[in-house]
Each structure stands twice: as structure tokens, then as C-alpha cells.
């Protein structure tokens, strides 16, 4: 009898283990742009971080899914009372994927490399405040700043500030070696980049064994790839007309989130007649944000009234500063001395929101007599003509770097904006680390930009993600440009 019982039990167990199949542990994600190389500390291309940030490389801190600063390779930190000395207590037991140990020397090396004279770090400015970085012991690093910097911990969370090892820094472009929960496996150029689980990871192990980023440049090709099951997630695509096709399909989740991309009608503030506040106000009054969002972004995207992300807790809604009012716009233009409008140009980079939004804005401007000739340009051309040489009147572009209101305080930036009052607020902000005070200063800064109508503030670029309904843990929003896979798993 007992024998039969145990046989029966064994059979049941076998059956149970057969039916309770394990959840999938691989994921293929489609991304529209291929990274030019795989070193986040040597290039601005968002695609680099979208593959490697938080997955392969980690910084002292990291940015979480809501834009918050979290500890990463720094377990904790102490800030001196004058706000100038940061003492970081580092993780012990963390290893680089080539087997070498992580310690304070690697951190010092990474910070020094990023701010060196011959550094090719795309965000070298993030490290400008650092005076010295000293190794106290293998698990402690002390950074001294030239002046207090409120955003220092946030800055260290950028992809450009990840920690690399001296042994592998030079070869990271081809063969990235980090400390993250995934290690780099293979890059089939033009096709895909594969990451696999790093068994030596110091933290909580990831649920995925294998993650492949497949490069699919064309949204029209990405959708059938998803439908056929070749890829299981498209975390960030401007899908346009293809969206309704997937939206109605219960096999997929469509997730509309926010990015840090302020989409603006950039105005050359020093070039007449745009040097007149009234002309810029007139332009602001003639912008119908809803029409632009509908026409250029498929109806998705939050209207903005200044250069600030609505996802940020310091955001204030200033879209009412110069509400849509063509009559008022015409009045202002007449006061400025252009009762019949004027001729100008609108240079548009090769992205959907700019090309489509440009048509709408040009027709809105025509309504008050401003005849804007549309000039389509390539990215390289845009960077040269508009960004570097400031040879433009109007342009449309999305500023995707997080928390980048400080660009308005930069001398010689392509907006040609110069307002000492704004600079003062930013300077104060720079030196303030108190949360409430910072929030207030951010508010003031937003207000100044809105009042000055520096640029036409249009909308926050949405993050449109589609993935298999069983995939969990992908980011809904994009506080930084990344596809953090650390919490991604397949539901059973």
C-alpha cells in the first residue's frame, strides 16, 4: 500500500513539474537606431545608453524609473556641511565582467578620465565642478568640489558618468565591460546586440537570461516583427499610423509615457526681428499646441509652457502665459512694427515631429502674415548650421537631455538668449542642495523663460512603448534615455 502511495505521489510530482513550465527568460527588443559604439562615456547617441545603461554599466548613483536618484555602486554617501565634500562608501564584492575587482581606484580613474583635457566625454560639463577625487581606502572615495553643486548626485547617475575599469576603458567601444547585472555577449553590426545574465553580479540577480536588442530602423517593419513574435517589445517608437493596428490587439500592451524631451520652436533671439519681445510673444500666441500634438505626435504628448518636463516635481504649468490667440498675436506684431508680417525661414531636422509640426506652425504663422519658408535639413547639417553656426531664424527640435533648463544660461548657445536675471537664478540653483528651495528656484526659472517667450514651447515628447502583455517591468516613462531591464520578467 505504502509503495503504491509513493509511486502515485512520484507520478503526481512528475506531472506537476511537467505542467508548471518555467517562465520565459529571454527577451528581444526592437530599437530604431543602432549605437555607433558601446561606450557610454564617449558619445551622445541615445542608443548607447538605451542598450547599456543600468544593464551592463553602472555609475555611483543611478536614475530610477521616476527620475529619482538611487544608490548604485555607491552604497551610501556623506555630504560635508559646506556642500563641497562628498564621501562615497562603495559596494564591496562588485566585479567587472572580465573578472577584475571593482574598487575606489576604478571610480577615481573614471572620474578623472571624464574630465581630463583630452576627454571625449559628450557631457564633460557634468564633471566641471569636481576639484579632486581621492581614494581613501578601496571602499571609500572622497570627491571635493570647487563649489557646492545641487545636482551633483543626479549628474553622477547619467550614462556618461558610469564607472569603467582602466583595463578595459579603451576597448569598451567594441567590447563593453561593466559591473552591471548583464554582460555583453555579441554585437552583430547592423543587426543586433545581445546581453546575457552576469552570474557574478553583486546585487539582486535579474530574471532574464538573455536580452537581445534588434535594430529595426523602420517603424513600418517593427510592427510586423512584433506581430510575428520575432521581437516581444518595442520600448520607444514613433509609430504614427501603425499604432491603432496594435492597440486593439489583446496580445500587446500599449504604454504611453513621458520623456525628458522638450519639443520647442527654437528662435534665434538675437536676430531681428526676433530680438523684439513683442515678435516672440506674437509667435507664442499663434501656436496652437493641441493642433501640433495631434498633427505631429499622433495626439500623444503633454503641452508645455516653458522648458521643463511635466514629469518633474518642480514643474509648473505655464501653458497659459501666452494662450492661443491669433488676434492678440496680430496686434502685438503691429505694435512691433510689422502690421503686414515678414518673411523668415524655418529649418527642420529629419524627424517626424519636426517635419510635421513645421508644416502646422508655418501655416499658423502665415495666419498673422509671417511667411516662414520651410527648409528641411539633415541632422549633420542641422548641428552645423543651426546649432553651431547659429545660422537660422526658426527651427523645431526636441531637447532630450533630462533637467536641461541650464542651457538657457549658457553663453553662446544657439538660442542666443541672454538674460542676467535668469543667469542669477541658475547660479543660485547651482549652489543650492535644499530640495524645497531648489523647487522654488526651478519655478522662477521656468517663469522667466515663459515670460520672455524665448522659444515657442510646444510639447513634451511622449514615449510610446508596445510590448507583449506578459512582459513586466519595462519602464513606462523615460526620465533618462535607457531601457533598464533589471526588473523585467515574463509573467507565468
Amino acid at each position, binding site marked *: 500500500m505504502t509503495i503504491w502511495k509513493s509511486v502515485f505521489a512520484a507520478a503526481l510530482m512528475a506531472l506537476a513539474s511537467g505542467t508548471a513550465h518555467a517562465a520565459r527568460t529571454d527577451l528581444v527588443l526592437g530599437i530604431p537606431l543602432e549605437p555607433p559604439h558601446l561606450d557610454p562615456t564617449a558619445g551622445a547617441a541615445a542608443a548607447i545608453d538605451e542598450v547599456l545603461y543600468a544593464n551592463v554599466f553602472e555609475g555611483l548613483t543611478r536614475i530610477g524609473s521616476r527620475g529619482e536618484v538611487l544608490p548604485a555602486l555607491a552604497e551610501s554617501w556623506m555630504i560635508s556641511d559646506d556642500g563641497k565634500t562628498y564621501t562615497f562608501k562603495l559596494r564591496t564584492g562588485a566585479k567587472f565582467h572580465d573578472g577584475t575587482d571593482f574598487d575606489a581606484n576604478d571610480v577615481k580613474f573614471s572620474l578623472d578620465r571624464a574630465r581630463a*583635457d583630452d576627454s571625449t566625454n559628450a557631457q*564633460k560639463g557634468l564633471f566641471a565642478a569636481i576639484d579632486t577625487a581621492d581614494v581613501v581606502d578601496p571602499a571609500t572615495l572622497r570627491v571635493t568640489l570647487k563649489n557646492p553643486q545641487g545636482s551633483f548626485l543626479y549628474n553622477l547617475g547619467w550614462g556618461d558618468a558610469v564607472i569603467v575599469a582602466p583595463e578595459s576603458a579603451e576597448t569598451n*567601444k567594441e567590447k563593453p565591460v561593466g559591473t552591471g547585472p548583464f554582460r555583453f555577449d555579441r554585437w552583430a553590426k547592423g543587426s*543586433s546586440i545581445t546581453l546575457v545574465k552576469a552570474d557574478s553580479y553583486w546585487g539582486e540577480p535579474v530574471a532574464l537570461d538573455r536580452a537581445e536588442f534588434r535594430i529595426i530602423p523602420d517603424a513600418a*517593419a517593427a510592427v510586423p516583427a512584433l506581430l510575428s513574435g520575432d521581437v516581444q517589445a518595442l520600448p520607444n517608437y514613433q509609430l504614427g499610423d501603425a499604432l491603432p493596428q496594435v492597440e486593439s490587439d489583446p496580445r500587446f500592451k500599449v504604454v504611453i509615457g513621458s520623456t525628458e524631451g522638450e519639443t520647442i520652436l527654437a528662435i534665434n533671439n538675437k536676430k531681428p526681428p526676433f530680438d523684439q519681445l513683442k515678435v516672440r510673444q506674437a509667435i507664442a500666441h499663434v501656436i496652437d499646441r493641441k493642433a501640433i500634438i495631434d498633427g505631429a505626435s499622433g495626439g500623444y504628448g503633454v503641452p508645455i509652457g516653458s522648458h521643463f518636463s511635466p514629469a518633474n516635481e518642480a514643474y509648473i504649468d505655464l501653458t497659459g502665459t501666452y494662450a492661443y490667440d491669433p488676434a492678440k498675436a496680430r496686434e502685438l506684431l503691429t505694435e512691433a512694427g510689422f502690421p503686414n508680417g515678414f518673411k523668415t525661414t524655418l529649418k527642420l531636422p529629419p524627424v517626424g515631429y519636426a517635419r510635421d509640426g513645421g508644416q502646422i506652425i508655418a501655416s499658423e504663422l502665415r495666419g498673422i502674415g509671417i511667411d516662414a519658408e520651410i527648409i528641411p535639413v539633415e*541632422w549633420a547639417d542641422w548641428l552645423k548650421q543651426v546649432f553651431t553656426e547659429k545660422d537660422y531664424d526658426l527651427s523645431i527640435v526636441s531637447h532630450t*537631455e533630462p533637467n536641461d533648463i541650464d542651457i538657457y544660461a549658457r553663453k553662446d548657445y544657439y538660442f542666443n538668449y541672454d538674460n542676467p536675471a535668469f543667469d542669477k537664478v541658475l547660479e543660485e540653483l547651482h549652489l543650492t542642495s535644499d530640495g524645497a528651495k531648489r523647487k522654488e528656484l526651478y519655478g522662477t526659472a521656468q517663469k522667466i523663460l515663459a515670460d520672455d517667450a524665448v522659444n515657442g514651447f510646444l510639447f513634451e515628447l511622449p514615449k510610446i512603448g508596445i510590448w507583449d502583455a506578459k512582459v513586466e517591468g519595462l519602464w513606462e516613462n523615460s526620465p533618462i534615455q535607457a531601457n533598464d531591464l533589471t526588473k523585467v520578467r515574463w509573467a507565468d
Partner: protein
Amino acid sequence: MTAYLLRRIVSGLVTLVVASIVVFSVLEVIPGDPARLMLGMNATDDAVQALRVQMGLDQGFLIRYFHWTGGLLTLDFGKSYTYSVPVGELIAERVTVSLPLALIALALSTAIAIPVGVFAAARRGKPADTISMAVAQVGVAIPNFWFALLLVYLFAVWLQLVPAGGFPGWQAGIGPALKALILPAIALALPQAAILARVSRSALIEVLGEDFIRMARAKGLSRNAALWRHALRNAMLPVLTILGLQFAFLLAGTVIIENVFYLPGVGRLVVQAINQRDLIVVESVVMLLVASVILINLLVDMAYAVVDPRLRTRA
């Protein structure tokens, strides 16, 4: 024959040199700084300058031209600005996708087009001719990216027979690799086949009206035998010309198809490199394409000589 070939080879070499000068100067003129492009809008000027020095962009035009052409002679194409790997390596990887794709597409289009052309020519003016040429006309008119998407929805999404796109690499095995190439090859081949079918039909019809065909028929050869044995061979000259042109087109002009099927081919490499101002890659790929077009033309010229014995003796 040798003199004829020699003349073709010399003219090919001259074309190459001229092309290298044109390609290099034209790309120098287009605006855009690869270093700034790579580091983006937030980069400081000294970081951009440091990268320019690293890329060798701070040197003069002539120095870079001779450096580049000197390298080409030894088959050293230089180092990609964006990828920072040897350009030769980059191209070699892509050619392993583009070349088989072009060859399969060419074989497919020939295998479809010539029988259709012969079939239509033999039934000139009859309904079969009209119908097959009407179909060919539609084939010429259909944009291939649209046709490609139709194929994807039918065979990949609905029937799930092949992947929707991508390329697993030859190391994944011949089977999966060919499976990934078959839809793109069909999408490329059909419009080409349509053109080729029309050309072979009209060439055949012209030849069929010639005296020697009537002679052959008079000597008792059947219609079909005369067609296959005598007419087809003589109709091959214009067909070969078109084939040569098509192959060059298939190698270089597959950009759209490579995008729809996201294949890592030469066409996409060039487009990507142009956008990123990875000039050295663009220059080298264009030179390679020029060289292969010249080579293909040379092969076509040699094929003429095989098909047409007069060319062999005349020169």
C-alpha cells in the same frame, strides 16, 4: 580579344581614379562635423576638438586624400569614425549579406524572366502574351517596399513560415540564414524579373523576324527548336546588358529592401554612414561599388564576346 579586354581594363582604371577624386571632394564639401555629430548638442567645444584630433580630422584635405588612396592601394580602407573599427572589416561583414542576397535575387529574376519572355514572344499577340506582359507591367509599377511589406504580412505574420526580418548571421547555419534572405530576395527579384521579361520578349521578337530564323524554319526545324537553339542565343546581348545593370543595382540599390527587412547589408551601411558623417566609410563603400560596377561591366563585355563570336575576332 586581348586588345579589346586591355582597352576595357585601362578605361576601368581611369574611371576608378577619377571616381576617387570626385567622391572624396564631394564628401568634403557636404556640411557636418562627424565629431560634433557623435558628441551631440551638450558637448563642450574642447571635447569635440579632442575627438577631431583623435579622428585625424585636423589634418589637411590633400594629406587625408593621399592617406586614403594610399591605403586603398594596399586594401587598407582606414578606420571608421563612428564604429572605430577597420572599414574593411565593416564592409566585409556587410558584403556577406548583400552579395548572397543580390545573387539569389538575380538568379530568381533570371529564372522567372527568361522563360516568361520566351513564352510571351512565342505567342506574340495572343492572349497568353498580353496577359503575361500585363502582369509584368504591374510588376514594374509596384513599389518594392510595399510589395515587401505585403510579403512580410503574408509569410511572416500570417503563415509564420519565415522571420519578418533580420539576419541571424551565417554562423547560425545555412538554413536559418537562407530563410532570412528568401523574402527580401523575392521582393527584389520580382520587379527586376518584370523588366527582364519585357526586354527578353522584345529582343526575341526582333530576332525571330530575322532571315536566319526563317532559313532555319525552312530547313525543317520546329518552331520551338528554332526559338531555343538559334533565336535565344542571339537575343541574349540586350538581356545581358540589362542583367549587368541590374546586378550593379542589386548590390547598391537594396537600401529600401534592407530597411524593410532590417538586414545588415551594404546599402544600409552607406545610408547610416552618410547620416553620421562617417565619411571614410561612405568613401570606401562608394569606391568599392564603383569598382564592382566596373568589374561587372567588364564581365558583361567578356560575356558578349562569348555570345557573339564576331567580337572575339574583330578586335
